[in-house]
C-alpha cells in the first residue's frame, strides 16, 4: 500500500510543518461537489493547522440535531500570509460558511472564506475553492 504525499521540501516551504497527515494532492472535483453548495452556521469547536488543508470543526444545528461539520480551508502557509494566527478563530466563535459539500455524504465541506455575524469576511486561502465559488457567482449572475 503506497501513500503518496506532498513533499514538504519544495524550495519555498521552510515552514517546518509535518506532511505526515497529507493525502495525495487531490483535486477539488474528486472530493467535493460544486453543485452541492451549503450554508453552515454554528460555533467553532476547533481549528486544525495542518497540511495540505486546514480544517474548521463547527457544530451546526441542522435536521433537528447538532451536526459536527469539518470545513476545509487553505494551507497554514496561505493562512499566515493572509494574517491569520492562533487567535484568529477561537473555539466558541460564531461563523457562517458557504461551502461545497463532500461527494461521499460525510459532514465535510470545502470553503473559500468565512463570515462573522457582524458581516466581516475572512479568506481561507483556498485557491481552488475560491475559483469554484467565483465561477458559481458568475453563473448565478448571468
Amino acid at each position, binding site marked *: 500500500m*503506497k*501513500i503518496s504525499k506532498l513533499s514538504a521540501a519544495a*524550495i519555498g*516551504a*521552510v515552514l517546518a510543518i*509535518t506532511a505526515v497527515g497529507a493525502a495525495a494532492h487531490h483535486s477539488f472535483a474528486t472530493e467535493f461537489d460544486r453543485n452541492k453548495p451549503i450554508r453552515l452556521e454554528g460555533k467553532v469547536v476547533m481549528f*486544525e493547522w495542518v497540511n495540505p488543508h486546514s480544517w474548521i470543526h463547527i457544530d451546526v444545528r441542522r435536521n433537528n440535531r447538532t451536526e459536527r461539520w469539518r470545513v476545509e480551508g487553505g494551507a497554514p502557509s496561505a493562512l499566515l500570509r493572509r494574517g*491569520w494566527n492562533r487567535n484568529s478563530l477561537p473555539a466558541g466563535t460564531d461563523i457562517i460558511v458557504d461551502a461545497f459539500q463532500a461527494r461521499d455524504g460525510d459532514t465535510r465541506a470545502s470553503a473559500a472564506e468565512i463570515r462573522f455575524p457582524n458581516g466581516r469576511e475572512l479568506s481561507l486561502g483556498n485557491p481552488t475553492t475560491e475559483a469554484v465559488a467565483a465561477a458559481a457567482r458568475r453563473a448565478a449572475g448571468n
Partner: protein
Amino acid sequence: MMNSSKLALLASAMALAACTTTAGPISAQSARPAASAPASAAAVARIGDAPNLNGVWQTMNTANWNLEPHSAAANPLERGDRLLGAIGAIPAGLGVVEGGAIPYKPEAMERLNSNRANVIAHDPEAACYLPGIPRATYMDMPFQIIQGDGDDILMAYEYASANRVINMEEVGIPPIDTWMGTSYGQWEGDTLVVTTLAQGPGLVKLPAGEMVEGVTWLDRAGNYLTNHATVTERFTPNGPNHMTYSVTIDDPTIYTRPWTISMPLYRHMEANAQLLEFKCVPFSERLLYGDLIEETGSN
C-alpha cells in the same frame, strides 16, 4: 513565512554551501594584517562580521537516546530485543545535562511516565514526525548550516529533510505553534544565539489511530518540552572544525528551573560531505498504519 529575499537566500546559499564544506575561508574584507592575528582566530573563517558556520555538522554522542546519564541496555521493546539483539541495543552515555538530571516538576510526571511507558511507539522520531529543537541537532544524522552575509540563516537536517530558518531579527511572537517552532537569532560576539519559541505538534496520530495532544520529545527516552518552552541555543566556534553547542531550556509549566545541555559539534571533513536523503515517511507507515494494512504477502 517566505518572501522573495528568503527565496533568493535559499537559492544562492545552497550553491554557496556546496563549495565551502572543507574549502578555505571565504575571502572577507579584513583590515587586519594576517601576520599579527592569533592563529586560532585567523583559522575560523569569517563571513561579513560573523564567523562562517557554513558546512555539514554532526554531534557524536548518545544524546538522542537519552539526555541524562545512562548505562548500556537492551532495546527497550521486548520484540526489539528479541529481533535485533545487540544491534538494537542502547549505548551508554555520560549524559549531556549540566547537573545530571532534568528538573521536572511533579505536574510533568504524568506525561513523562506516559512517554516512558511508550518509548518508540509514541516517539515522534519513529513516526517520522519533525524532531523540534534542540533534538534535530543531535539526531545522530548530519545537518547543514547555510549562512550568507547578513541574511537569515538556514539549517537543513538530513532526518526527514527537516529544516528551519533562523530569523536574524528581534525575538517576536510566533503566529502559530509548529513542529520546529520559530527561531530568532543574533550574534553575541562570535556566538550565534538562537531563541526558539512555539514548538507545538498539535494533535498527533499515534499507532492504531489514537489522536492525542502532542508534545516535542527531546530524546528516545521520553524527555519532553511543551509549547510554553523557550529554547536558547548557543553555537560558539571552537577552531575551524568544531563548535560548542549549548542549549538552555526554560519551560515553567514543567520544569522547576531552566536547565542546560552542552556538547561539541564536529564538522564533516570528507571532501564529498553532504546531506543524503532520509525521507522516512514510508519507513513509518507500518508503525502508524500497520493495523489497517492487510499483510497479504505482496507489496
